[in-house]
């Protein structure tokens, strides 16, 4: 039976503590949540992502008040009402568009940090998997959001991407029409993607963020050397005042102080982009209203989808779809394809070192080739890069199996 002090003043510290255990909550979630000391600024990317999601959520709420999900009115509600009439409407839209693009840059940095330091194994598999689920949901969120202004790129990207679900020679037109709710993208299509973008997917994202944080709790955050730390023992050192000897720091305020500094720098760059350099996130083609009778000369997705789009392009229809499907799911399998027990930076891991940089460069090549028109030399480069991507993943279990265990690690 819990004890409630009848003399405690309502909302006083003790009154709150009796009812909500705020002291315990604070200890568990912040002052005694231990983070390794041996980290660099890349460890702040999680916080940067959370903050960017917050920016997207808040700017999205303001956009939602004037956006009209009607194929006849959507374009003008965005480009005239929000951009021209609503006070600071232009700011919310630019913030929303730039954040939607930048969030993927940070996600990729966050992912490649995890790959580089091996932060997806030895108890951290679920961190990786929940993170990948977040990546996929963010992708769906970005795509559905891209439909909403109902410009030329919205319409034709919607057409091309939903067409993929006919699954090549299977020719599942029925499935495509079911997804669209029409034979071509129309009112039903816009309505359901609006629902996905503003309700269902944000809810799933928020739930996944909680799960992602939860998966961190027991294995703890990795560190720059992949060292296995006895967090209980190190925490005792910290609590005993041995700040220098302890290998850990509390999340709040020590780790947070660095995160907030990185956030500050990040927001300087972010707002520079919002005010002076937003074109990269707001494709000019989408400022032409959707026209079902006129295909734009070049159809390409936003930059963060280009690498997987390029894996689709160089092959024949069916093979391309299979390669595309492969690219979508293969990252999920990373913890199980990496057969080496070593948790260490890629630079200390034999062939994996080359594998890491090859993958990064190959994905950048795919990204660039995904945007340029598929002609001449670009097709050749794209095909080679697509094959390289597939072969790298096929090779991963073998080269990691060959890897020698690093001394002191199991």
């Amino acid at each position, binding site marked *: 039976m819990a004890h409630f002090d009848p003399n405690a003043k309502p909302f006083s510290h003790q009154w709150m503590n009796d009812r909500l255990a705020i002291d315990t909550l604070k200890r568990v979630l912040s002052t005694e949540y231990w983070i390794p000391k041996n980290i660099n600024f890349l460890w702040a990317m999680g916080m940067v992502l959370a903050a960017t999601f917050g920016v997207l959520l808040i700017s999205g709420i303001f956009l939602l008040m004037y956006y009209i999900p009607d194929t006849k009115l959507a374009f003008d509600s965005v480009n005239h009402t929000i*951009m021209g009439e609503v006070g600071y409407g232009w700011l919310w839209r630019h913030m929303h568009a730039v954040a939607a693009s930048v969030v993927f840059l940070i996600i990729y940095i966050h992912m490649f940090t995890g790959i580089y330091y091996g932060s997806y194994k030895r108890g951290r598999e679920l961190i990786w998997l929940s993170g990948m689920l977040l990546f996929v949901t963010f992708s769906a969120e970005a795509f559905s959001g891209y439909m909403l202004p109902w410009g030329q790129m919205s319409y034709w990207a919607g057409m091309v991407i939903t067409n993929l679900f006919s699954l090549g020679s299977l020719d599942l037109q029925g499935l495509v029409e079911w997804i669209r709710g029409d034979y071509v993208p129309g009112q039903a299509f816009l309505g359901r993607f609006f629902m996905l973008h503003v309700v269902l997917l944000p809810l799933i994202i928020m739930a996944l963020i909680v799960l992602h944080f939860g998966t961190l709790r027991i294995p703890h955050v990795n560190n720059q050397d992949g060292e296995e730390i006895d967090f209980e023992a190190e925490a005792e050192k910290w609590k005993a005042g041995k700040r*220098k000897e302890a290998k850990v720091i509390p999340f709040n305020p*020590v780790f947070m*102080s660095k995160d907030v500094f990185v*956030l500050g720098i990040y927001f300087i760059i972010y707002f520079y982009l919002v*005010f002076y350099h937003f074109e990269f996130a707001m494709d*000019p083609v989408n400022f032409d209203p959707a026209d079902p009778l006129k295909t734009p000369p070049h159809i390409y997705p936003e930059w963060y989808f280009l690498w997987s789009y390029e894996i689709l392009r160089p092959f024949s229809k069916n093979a391309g779809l299979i390669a595309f499907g492969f690219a979508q799911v293969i990252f999920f399998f990373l913890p199980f394809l990496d057969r080496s027990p070593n948790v260490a930076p890629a630079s200390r891991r034999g062939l994996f070192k080359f594998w890491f940089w090859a993958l*990064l460069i190959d994905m950048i090549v795919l990204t660039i080739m995904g945007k340029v028109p598929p002609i001449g030399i670009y097709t050749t480069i794209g095909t080679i890069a697509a094959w390289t991507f597939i072969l790298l993943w096929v090779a991963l279990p073998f080269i990691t199996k060959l890897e020698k265990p690093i001394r002191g690690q199991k």
Partner: protein
Amino acid sequence: MKKMKELKILAVVVFFTLVTYWGVEPYAHSVMHKHVEFKNFKYEDLKPISAKGDAAKGQALAAACAGCHSIKAAKMPAPMDPVTAAATYGVNPPDLSLAGAVLDEKYLAHFLKDPVHTAMVAHKFKNRAYPMPPMATDDQSAADLVAYFKSIAPKEVTPKEAYEFACGRCHEMRYAKWTQIGEEPKTKPNIQTHMNEGKLKFDEKLAKYKDHLVKYLGKLPPDLSIIVRARSEDYLKTFVEDPQAQLPGTAMPRVGVSKEGYEKVFKYLEEVGDPSKPKREAVGPWVIGYFIIFSFLAWLWYKSQWKGLK
């Protein structure tokens, strides 16, 4: 040592980010879009006209223009309303009051002598007559007419007027309530029936006008409300200067605006298409300045927290 390592990591991240940006933005766009040299609205394919114009003689010649065009600056009214004019000619002929202010002098002289080739629309008029006949038989009469148009043109032309003269009879601009037959009238619906008769009547006229325009050009020219966001600045000026170079076969004529005339038109396109630009420029430095101070304070906090940790 430790600090250097973080900076090195930062350099690697920045490097790969910039390479990706360069590839998908400047590089990809340079491959996707045809490069057309901008020639500063000099119209070098047209020979210079050496003849000196006489505005008084030009005025006498201009009487012939009034058969189709209005010249409000000289108190000459339009011979017919826009819809009837479009039914007759395909498009409503422009009021000529601003011709001397917005169009390039040399272009205008050549246009008066040989309209179809100067406007670069010969490919659209192989089997039918261009509605504008040549009005000047030689350099002298062309120069006289140009001198006359310059003499009646107002000293100051607003960006909006320049747009209406140069673009507005083919391109609507719904965010500025502009249609091809003029500004949308401010009409009110009947409070009993909720029917807006005035608007319906106007729309009927507009529908007819657009119909004539589509027959004349092959398709309806795009609304230019946010064309400044949909096309780059470079594309717009090279396209207006020489439409065929950017889009071979297009029905868009070479309008022949002067450099100053184009700047006026562009200013209007920007005012309507990107109204937040002045606000962005006003607010931007404050927000960025705020985060610079924020980062400095955060750095001080970070330093104090991490002191004696290593």
